[in-house]
């Protein structure tokens, strides 16, 4: 199993600041072909035939989105590129914008030609300074060469692109919030419908597409929709870029055909789990996604298969976990993130997720009962059903999926007051095995409290009442004399 690079075709190949190199790699040829040889309808039909679906996470067919936006009445329309990448541990969009900015600019112009827009906006977070600088530089370069701006390549089609810097709110990746933010208002979502394709930026029809979606457009135009549709699974075509992170040997950015299995990604491309430990779960879709247990290692990954097991494709973050990860702690981590990032507009998300988070805290501190688990599931489903936007509708996913696949781990926390992975500090104790302890004093000297006593060459003892469970003694002991339970 190997990477196939479509969206990342030029990343790491060309110098992103030299437009000549991009042109040498067939840059702006797709735009030229579209403007001079195809009608907007033909282009949209080709994108629809290719089966390309939005890479931001939702998986809505891109061609259909363009078609709806084109058919929406109005003279002024907009293209927005969603570069508000916010999932913890995901950096696909940043890599594309830093390594191949022109591919996104070119595809935005193609989208503009299709739907009848003259203006495109890239909504990008200010914490990506290098990507912002390269985009600014590339836009200026392309305008100077007449590949963007007025009368592109001598035709009567004009397209301008401006940047809009976001302050880094996670909710602004949701399209209606993003539009509010571009308009200068608070980043809060609105009720859909009307969808942005009908009434978006400044109430005009707007097509919002993700960076990676745009990066796929030019190859489809140049190589044909049939070529693209030949890659992937029946309902998910092409490739997907994943940011592989966590307990994996080869952390990095990969691009694989849809339908690749987790096993192929982890063991063939990722080089296996660190320290040859056992695989426990893969988290996809960031804070909106779920945890995939080992039983699905051979499931071909696409939009629909992931949704069917309670996770989602998301933008492409993939975090690999081994047996040292506590799933309750992982769910808590993600929920803490969404509680922080909830905009507060609707009650289920603002209050519901907060209450859900408190329940998780009670579990990890050993104060919960089995009833807590039951009520968590109930609350999670209510939040999913009632929240206004995608953030709230998916926020309970990490909790619900871990409850479903790792219930016995929750049970251990609740009934036995025990954390099987040894992560939740309230539930673990460190003890010294007097038979193995050689009295080398390393633990006592490194203990930050300090709460370890004992004479040299005699067994040591941990004062449990003062132990802060930092684990330093456990890490420092060379004789395997300290147990963590």
């Amino acid at each position, binding site marked *: 199993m*190997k*990477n*196939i*690079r479509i969206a*990342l075709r*030029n*990343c*790491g*190949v*060309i*110098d*992103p*600041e*030299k437009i*000549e*190199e991009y*042109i*040498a790699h*067939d*840059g*702006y*040829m797709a735009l*030229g*072909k579209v*403007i*001079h040889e195809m009608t907007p309808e033909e282009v949209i039909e080709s994108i629809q035939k290719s089966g390309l679906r939005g890479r931001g996470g939702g998986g809505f067919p891109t061609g259909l989105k363009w078609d709806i936006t084109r058919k929406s009445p109005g003279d002024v329309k907009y293209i927005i590129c969603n570069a508000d990448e916010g999932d913890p541990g995901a*950096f696909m969009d*940043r*890599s594309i914008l*830093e*390594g*191949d900015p022109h591919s996104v600019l070119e595809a935005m112009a193609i989208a503009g030609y299709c739907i009848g827009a003259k203006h495109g906006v890239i909504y990008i977070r200010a914490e*990506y300074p*290098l*990507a912002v600088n390269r985009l600014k530089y590339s836009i200026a370069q392309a305008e*100077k*060469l*007449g*590949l963007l701006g007025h009368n592109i*390549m*001598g035709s009567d089609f004009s397209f301008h692109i401006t940047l809009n810097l976001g302050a880094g709110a996670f909710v602004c990746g949701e399209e209606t919030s993003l539009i509010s933010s571009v308009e200068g208002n608070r980043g809060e979502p609105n009720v859909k419908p009307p969808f942005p394709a009908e009434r978006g930026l400044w109430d005009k029809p707007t097509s919002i597409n993700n960076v990676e979606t745009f990066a796929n457009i030019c190859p489809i135009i140049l190589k044909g929709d049939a070529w693209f549709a030949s890659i992937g699974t029946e309902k998910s075509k092409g490739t997907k870029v994943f940011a592989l992170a966590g307990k994996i*040997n*080869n*952390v*990095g*950015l*990969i*691009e694989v055909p849809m339908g690749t299995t987790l096993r192929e990604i982890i063991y063939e*491309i990722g080089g296996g789990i660190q320290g040859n430990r056992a695989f426990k779960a893969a988290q996809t879709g960031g804070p909106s996604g779920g945890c995939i247990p080992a039983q699905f290692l051979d499931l071909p990954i696409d939009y629909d298969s992931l949704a069917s097991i309670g996770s989602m494709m998301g933008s492409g973050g993939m975090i690999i976990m081994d047996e040292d990860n506590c799933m309750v702690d992982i769910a808590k981590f993600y929920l803490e993130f969404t509680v922080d990032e909830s905009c507060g507009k609707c009650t289920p998300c603002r209050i519901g997720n907060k209450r859900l988070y408190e329940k998780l805290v009670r579990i990890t501190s050993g104060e919960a009962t089995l009833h807590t688990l039951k009520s968590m599931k109930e609350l999670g489903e209510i939040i999913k059903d009632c929240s206004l936007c995608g953030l709230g509708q998916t926020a309970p996913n990490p909790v619900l999926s871990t409850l479903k696949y790792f219930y016995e781990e929750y049970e251990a926390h609740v009934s036995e007051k025990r954390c099987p992975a040894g992560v939740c500090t309230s539930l673990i104790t460190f003890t010294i095995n007097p038979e193995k302890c050689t009295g080398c004093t390393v633990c006592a000297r490194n203990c930050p409290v300090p709460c370890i006593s004992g004479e040299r060459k005699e067994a040591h003892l941990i004062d449990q009442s003062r132990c802060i469970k930092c684990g330093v003694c456990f890490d420092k002991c060379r004789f395997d004399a300290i147990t963590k339970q």
Partner: protein
Amino acid sequence: MDKIKSFDELKYLNTKYKSQFDLTASKGTQYILAVGMATCGIAAGAKDVMETLYKEILANGIKNVTVTSTGCLGYCYAEPVVEVRSSKGGPVLYGGVDAAKAIRIIKEHIINGNPLKDAIIERSEVK
């Protein structure tokens, strides 16, 4: 550079630049050293690597090497990375490059023609 006024002009430039960046068309052995300069590479020290490469090239009076920056190659675990492209033979990808390895790349690979076996990372993509 002037504005491109037609699709044909773009097609012409496409062909022109293609041959310009085509290493195999050049006389003698030509090298391109591409340094991964995305945020991750820079954070891992790619700028120092690039500077060292320039210094060594100047110090040794090497004429057949171009240093260029490029985007993310995807090998986060091995940053900073340097790809040595050559007019003869396929590209070689080095990982975990620091100033010392950069000097070795120039001395051993470019001058003596012996790739650094201990620093090569296996590629995982097909073209």
